[in-house]
């Protein structure tokens, strides 16, 4: 059973595949450059409380991104 969620809502430890972005082209470009791209498998490492940044692991890269950005990265789990 596949569920659609985003990086902000994922639980720490969960993995999924990035299916798309709900962000503008500028932000998508920056996310892609740093290694957050459609089709990539990501694992959420942690999320800070009170809408703090989210840390994800994708391939060899570990990236921290703000909560607002994390919400714009759609992920399919399962």
């Amino acid at each position: 059973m596949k569920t659609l969620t985003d990086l902000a809502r994922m639980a720490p430890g969960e993995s999924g595949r990035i299916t798309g972005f709900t962000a503008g082209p500028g932000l998508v470009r920056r996310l892609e450059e740093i290694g957050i791209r459609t089709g990539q498998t990501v694992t959420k490492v942690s999320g800070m409380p009170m809408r703090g940044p989210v840390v994800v692991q994708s391939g060899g890269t570990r990236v921290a991104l703000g909560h607002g950005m994390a919400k714009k990265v759609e992920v399919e789990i399962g």
Partner: protein
Amino acid sequence: MKKIVLMGNPNVGKSVLFYRLTGVQVIASNYPGTTVEFTRGFLTFPQDTPAPPGALFRPGERVEIIDAPGVYSLEASSRADRVAVEILEGADLVISVVDATNLERNLCLTLQLLERPVPVLVALNLWDETRHLGIEITPAKLEEMLGVPVVPTVGVSGEGVRELVERLQEARPGGHPARTRDTRWPEMGRIVSSCQLLTHHHHTFLQRLSDLSVKPLTGIPLAALVMLGAFWVVRSIGENLIAYIGDPVFEKLYLPLLERLSAVLGPGSLLHAVLIGRLIDGSIDFTQSFGALSTGLYVPLVMVLPYIVSFYLVLSFLEDFGYLPRAAVLLDGLMHRVGLHGYAIIPSLLGLGCNVPAVMGTRILESRRERFIAATLISVGIPCAALQAMIFGLVGERGGHYVAIVYLTLFLVWLGLGMILNRLVKGYSPELIIEIPHYRLPPLGPFLKKLRVRIIGFLKEALPVVLLAVLAVNLLYAVDIFDFLAGLFAPVVTALLGLPRESIVAILIGFLRKDVAVGMLVPLDLTDGQLVVATTVLAMFFPCIATFAIILKELGWRDMLKSTAIMLVTAVAVGAVLNLLLN
């Protein structure tokens, strides 16, 4: 002269490779954005090896090497990015430095370089780290796919650097067709899957520690431990260096020499006043005499230098270990309150050493608004190591709680002013987006070299200005300009801040060096409360001349004036409130 540019993603070890190629020491750390400006150095090709046919460089040819700030892509977004792209325009050859532990992501920039007409060579750096991460890359295969030479290197040990220099001769333009972003990603995937093999590996201790330091439940206590530990180490090393090296050397070895000189010059002479200063109860007092050779050397070398050594020892370790980006994640929430994001913690921490590199470090922030807020908050609320050493030395004598009041006040001012600026300054503050590097144990050699560069940097920048400041003080007293200045500023200083007229000179000297300025407060017989007010005001008031110059350079005239006005108003207002509370 031909130009070779080192380009690569942030934190792939360009600066260390640069040092290996040129011998020019630059500050390298384990976080993205250490290099915000480019550095030049030179490389001479070996005389004895004959150049192969079609070689780019003659034997013995001298070329310029440029260390560019790290970028993810040639489509620039931050100011540091633009610096890198401009450097690329004038390059005769580009060494594309790639993090071998993160090949796919790094290839994005490499492919963009290969689409340009410039000759390229790829350095597969951090090669040693691939083994324990279970990554196997076949350089020959990668070379075949990219069409340019690929050399595995380990910057910190120098492995592969000789081969890199030899193969610079074979660098050639990639001749790749111009791709769009959409066609570049699949190409990267294709290249990586054909030359890289991932095997399963057990998480190392450092990887587990890395996880723990960004999870809230474990990360926040860890951060508190790191901070307390850092503070404790800085203080104990600093105090011990003063007690067991600085003071004995000055009191036992240097003082007798100075006393002889004092007798020769004669206490009444002008030369005595400038070099030795006033005699306190008939003898030289290193903190109060205020001559160039007495206080002028004692303050920077005995009171400040030990703390510079201990502070940079700790900061350099945290930088090279890779802790700072984790601190950025943990403190992101706090930093958003002052209109910044977590990554601004890095220039702010640098400011605890010296405000000059800190203000330059604000270039890692993207928007003008963030840079203005960060630079202003650093110069108002973050005391540099020299100033802190004097606060510990002189305010600390009156009791630890007075030191605590100074720090707490500065922190509250930083926070309060930040919250106000967050409301008032127009523009946008983007969200945090950073790569978190692997933890690495810093190799001793480069670590010590970096420490040496920073200490020598302090001595070169600070000593002349300290001596100049001491000289200026003596001249101000000699030509009686003091009374004029005192009359001019007396209403503010005496009425609002509750300080004696004499402290005006100290506050003015603060424009040259804040450590000297705090030193000048000693002979004034201030009450405890007055000393707290005076040091706090000194810390916030006007940046020292070096910081002033760098703010002007980074922000331009208008923002520099705005920033300065904010500092003046804040310093006087907070000083007045403290005065009401304490006196």
